[in-house]
């Protein structure tokens, strides 16, 4: 296990859920299911839970595709707050040169490259830290909508 849970020391966060999964496609669904359970516990509505599930799925796809290969693990950490969740997906892979995240070109649709765009569209704040040799961290924040 390389997963390491740290309290982010912010506000009322005192519960973290951390999972470490093999970098294989068949394990991504475990992270998605976990995300929906965590989001439901916090009190997100159904649409928000679906958004979180999809964003976590895309971040994990990214970790599996760009990670260290099938012999390594990637980590998913959920920091639980009263009104938000902070999710970090971390791999120890080769990283990639992060280019600007272009809006998909409908006149010339591509088979790949939609993942990060989808995450940014569905979550309230997203930070992607990746550089060749240092792995990748995708941090995502989603706030509970006020009208719930």
């Amino acid at each position, binding site marked *: 296990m390389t997963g390491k849970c740290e309290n982010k020391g912010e506000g009322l966060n005192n519960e973290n859920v951390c999972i470490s999964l093999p970098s294989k*496609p*068949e394990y*991504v*669904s475990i992270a*998605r299911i976990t995300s929906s359970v965590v989001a439901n516990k916090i009190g997100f509505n159904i*649409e928000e839970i*679906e*958004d979180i*599930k*999809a964003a976590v*799925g*895309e971040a*994990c*796809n990214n970790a*599996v*595709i760009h990670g260290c290969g099938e012999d390594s693990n990637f980590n998913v950490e959920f920091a639980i707050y009263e009104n938000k969740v902070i999710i970090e997906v971390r791999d120890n892979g080769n990283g990639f040169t992060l280019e600007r995240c272009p*809006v*998909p070109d*409908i006149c010339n*649709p*591509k*088979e*790949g490259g*939609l*993942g990060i*765009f*989808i995450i940014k*569209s*569905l979550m309230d704040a997203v930070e992607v830290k990746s550089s060749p040799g240092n792995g990748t961290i995708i941090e995502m924040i989603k706030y509970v909508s006020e009208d719930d």
Partner: protein
Amino acid sequence: MSLNVKKSFDREKDMWTVELIGEVDIYTPNDLKETLISLLQEKESNIRLNCIELDYIDSTGLGVLIGILKRLKNVDKNIIIANPKSNISKLLKITGLDKIFIME
């Protein structure tokens, strides 16, 4: 989590009808790709994807559909996406793919 695909050819409408049941994610897109390619090898017609029981599709699944659509466009055919759930409609909308597939 798994994907179940039911396919048939509608002679009256001259199109493939494909029911997607379950989830299309990074673990299943090759199954979907192979299935759709095998249909086109048999007959290059429009493909109507009935998504009423499709719970989830990710960017890898959308990528497969884009690849198949490109092939179909070459012969002036299309993909019809029917009855998507709200989470899937949202994904198609934010990626703009609702403009290139026929939505029903």
